[in-house]
């Protein structure tokens, strides 16, 4: 277990102290009320047994004490629940903010990090922490009552308390790593299952559905195995505790019975031990363990929360530091963007995708990025758009501002090779948050060839897209994304395979528009399409000495 993750979890607990304080007060009052209940009801039975005159007030007092006991307990529980909710809510909103600045995360996993993972830590706050506090308060008050009533019972129960640390250590040992492994497997399985469902149509076209079903069942077996391990530890620990508790209740009962019978030696209990007192003690003993028991069975909640923290904490650590953009930066200068020994890889144990790149870009004009598939064209463009940052080397901008990614983000517009279309109309997808006037909008539709390509009956303002624009063909999606880019132009225009799914005629028209853009903008294009070759002012070749697939 890494310390920072644990501290992070702990910091959440101690963030708000007042709610915990009130919860503690309620618990103390609740347990005092229970003592009252035990007192009056045992008095009632004791009087009855001895044949004394009984007052019905005893029962009424007992009833009133019960009402207080449950009311205060409910109040305390509600405080703890509220605290748990607000901690989780804060965790979630922190996670949303942190995750959006990390563009290499897997989308499904990221969504799970926000929507489901923090919920798994909630029992830790609203139960584990609460029960821990409650068991300290309640057992202290009960021990005081035992001390006052019967020293032997007091010693017996104090000793049984010592078993708990032993138990905790045995559960804690090894359980955390098992939990972590379990959470890891769980997340992996969830993402694999979702991915296979999404790919089902494709899997079927390849005829490999049975194999993949077999694969899923293997993975699920693995996960179940881990789950069972986790459950076994949790159950074993709570059963062990249960055993100690039940057994000490039984021992106290037998001790009290034998004292009543007069079988206990003189220094333990004298002959003719008071029945009322012993019944009072017998009623208190289970309550002494009441929160302790809940605390122990919630112990695995702590392990789960730590595993959650271990998973979540790194994203807060990796989040890029907020960079205050200096306003005096000369905004419009795109001249002289320079790559100095830039290297990049996606995972620290992975392959270098880009290796020691050195070049300088012009202020405007078309720059063509070439290379075989997998040579890092898309990665280079994402670096230029500011969404990825070099692991090594620098991207230098003429302004002298070394932290370039924020500047690049603000001054570039980027067209993804796999464009994403939001749920909404085509027009919404093009205009996004800033509506355009009618004329400009029509102009963009024409420039992007959408008027030409979309069937006549498809209205851009009425056709509603969903599921990443499944209603459109690959080429149409690309054109919508191109139109979107035209509606939000910036000094640097970055295009990843802008013509990949288009026919030759449309490709040519789009390429002409791109060429026109390059008169006034710096246009970066990654493409295999030969149509860009004559338009390029500069070319960047990413092939490393392996030119056999190279076009002339």
């Amino acid at each position, binding site marked *: 277990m890494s310390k920072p993750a644990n501290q992070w979890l702990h910091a959440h607990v101690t963030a708000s102290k007042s709610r915990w304080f009130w919860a503690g007060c309620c618990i103390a009052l609740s347990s005092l009320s229970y003592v009252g209940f035990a007192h009056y009801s045992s008095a009632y039975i004791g009087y009855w047994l001895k044949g004394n005159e009984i007052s019905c007030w005893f029962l009424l007092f007992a009833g009133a004490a019960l009402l207080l006991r449950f009311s205060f307990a409910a109040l305390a529980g509600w405080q703890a*629940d509220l605290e748990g909710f607000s901690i989780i809510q804060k965790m979630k909103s922190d996670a949303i903010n942190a995750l959006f600045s990390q563009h290499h995360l897997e989308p499904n996993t990221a969504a799970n990090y926000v929507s489901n993972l923090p919920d798994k830590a909630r029992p830790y706050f609203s139960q584990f922490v609460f029960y821990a506090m409650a068991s300290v308060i309640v057992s202290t008050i009960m021990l005081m009552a035992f001390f006052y009533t019967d020293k032997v019972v007091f010693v017996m129960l104090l000793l049984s308390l010592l078993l708990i640390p032993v138990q905790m250590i045995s559960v804690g040992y090894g359980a955390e790593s098992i939990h972590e492994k379990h959470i890891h497997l769980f997340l992996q399985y969830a993402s694999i299952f979702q991915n296979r*469902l999404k790919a089902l149509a494709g899997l079927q076209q*390849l005829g490999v559905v049975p194999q993949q079903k077999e694969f899923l069942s293997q993975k699920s077996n693995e996960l179940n195995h881990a789950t069972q391990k986790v459950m076994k530890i949790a*159950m074993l620990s709570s059963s062990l505790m249960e055993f100690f508790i*039940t057994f000490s209740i039984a021992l106290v009962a037998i001790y009290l019975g034998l004292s009543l019978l007069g079988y206990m030696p003189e220094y333990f209990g004298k002959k003719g031990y008071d029945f009322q007192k012993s019944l009072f003690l017998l009623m208190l003993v289970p309550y002494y363990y009441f929160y302790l028991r809940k605390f122990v069975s919630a112990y695995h909640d702590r392990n789960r929360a730590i595993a959650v923290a271990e998973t979540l904490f790194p994203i807060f650590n990796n989040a890029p530091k907020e960079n205050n953009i200096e306003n005096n930066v000369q905004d419009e200068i795109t001249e002289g963007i320079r790559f100095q020994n830039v290297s990049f890889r996606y995972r620290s144990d992975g392959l270098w995708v880009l290796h020691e790149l050195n070049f300088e870009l012009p202020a405007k004009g078309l720059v063509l990025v070439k290379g075989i598939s997998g040579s890092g064209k898309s990665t280079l463009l994402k670096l230029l758009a500011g969404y990825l940052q070099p692991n090594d080397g620098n991207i230098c901008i003429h302004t002298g501002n070394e932290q370039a990614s924020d500047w690049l983000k603000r001054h570039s517009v980027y067209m993804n090779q796999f464009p994403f279309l*939001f749920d909404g109309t085509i027009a919404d997808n093009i205009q996004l948050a800033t509506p355009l006037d009618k004329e400009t909008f029509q102009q963009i539709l024409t420039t992007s060839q959408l008027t030409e390509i979309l069937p006549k009956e498809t209205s851009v303002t009425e056709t509603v897209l969903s599921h990443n624009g499944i209603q459109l063909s690959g080429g149409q999606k690309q054109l919508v994304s191109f139109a979107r880019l035209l509606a939000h132009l910036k000094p640097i225009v970055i295009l990843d395979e802008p013509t990949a799914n288009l026919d030759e005629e449309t490709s040519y028209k789009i390429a002409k528009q791109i060429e026109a853009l390059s008169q006034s903008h710096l246009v970066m294009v990654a493409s295999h399409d030969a149509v860009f070759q004559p338009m390029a002012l500069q070319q960047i070749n990413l092939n490393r000495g392996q030119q056999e*697939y190279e076009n002339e």
Partner: protein
Amino acid sequence: MNKFILQHIVFPYKRNWLVGIALALLWAVSFVMLPAIAGWFLATCAVVFITANTTFSYIFPSTTIRLLAILRSGVKYAEKTENHRTLLQVEQSLQLKIFEKVSRLPFAQKQQQNISSIVHTVVYGIEAVQNYFLLWLIPLFGFVVAFLASVGYLLPMNLGLGLLLLSGGIGIVFLLPALVLRNNDDYTRKIHGLKIKQQAFLTQSFQASIEIAQYQLMDKVVYTAHQDAELILSFEKKLQRQQLLLSFCTGLGFALLSLLLLYFSRNASMDVTLATGIFLGVLSLGELAELFVPTKTINKALNLNIKAMDELLQAKESPDTDSNRSVPPFESLQLQDWSVKIPNAKLSFPEVSIQLKKQEWLGVFGPTGSGKTTLLNSLFYPEYRQSRGKLLLNNEPIEKLTIPKAIFVAQEAFVLTGTLRENFFGASDDAILNTLQVVGLKTWFQTLLQGLNTWLGEDGQYLSGGQRKKLLLAQALLQSPELLIIDEPTAGIDLVSALEIFNNIRKTYPRLTVLMVTHQIGLKPLFNRMYSIEQEKF
């Protein structure tokens, strides 16, 4: 209990459930008996002392108390482990059933299925089933038996007291929750819907994280996400409040019931020793009830989730998905006056007539949006074709092509989350390596430090467009099809490598027949024959 639970959860694991429930009953009974006997024992001891009774032996009751203590904790462990194991088996079988079911849905529906909602259904449905069994149903069984035993013990002794316990218990455990949980259905349904929406929204947003940052949509997205979360929270709080209220009422109810019983048993001049036992017994019945009655709050979610799973499992399947039918070796394929459509769309496409012979490579060309992809879909999925026109295989009319004799490499290249080897699950390492060589991925493969164990990322996000295409092609070739149908093979691959790859394929699989749809004129040298679709202008 509804049919779904019986059919999918209870019956297949009858024996496991019987053992689990028997253990639960044993536990509940010993849970109530222990304090009852202890109380009775104390009172008896006192009475024995007062009356100076010499015949009473403490050995038997005190041994019983100790045995019950051991039983109570031992049985608990066995019961929990047993029932958990059963539920994990249930979980696995349900997941696989749903996976198989979705694979049988018609193609167009599968394309439009909301995957996040299916995943949500599976994950939360199964969690709801688990909670329902572990937190509600099994403890309920235990409680009912312990409760009925207590009532059965009390009734013959004193009718009034027995009836008081019976009616009080039923009121607290069954009537009270109905009263407290009036709006529960509503809250549960809202949370369910909101969570599906939230998950879909977040996944979409993270998929589009670059677009979102690019076009300054971040604030809007974060705002929406927070709003959703707040809304879910407000309903979760209401549920939690109901749960606390139930726990309060149950605990208080049984405790007051025990006091009432104490009062009336004295009036009914019952033995004080018995009355003490009953008093403590009913108190612990209350403790037992407090364990499971409050969980009723979350168990309403079960119905929603089960309904969703049931609907999914009952959904209409595509008419014929049997791929094991024996198909004669491929000789020729003919499309006569073939016309296609997109299901639920009003577009229409021109008729085509195409002929394809064994070992022939045919290229179909056409501009963007001319229905090329739809044409290929129609060969496999009847919902994409108009009623007229004929499809002939070896001159025999057929409904559709059969996988895996004919394999369709679609335009959208999917990559499976997992390692390189897991993408080819079921194939031998040698076969995988050979195929990678054919599709021109050998050089790339040699740079991988972990070889076939290399993790390719979620949906293969560490791969470029061209690599994805090539991997998909390799997947298809590994199934050794007779007819390979390819949609736009060159997106993301430059022309020269594309030509090289396909020439490689032709060399390695000389018996293969290929039908390819493309707009890339440069691929012409690959084909024996070509066909061109003209776009119908509207």
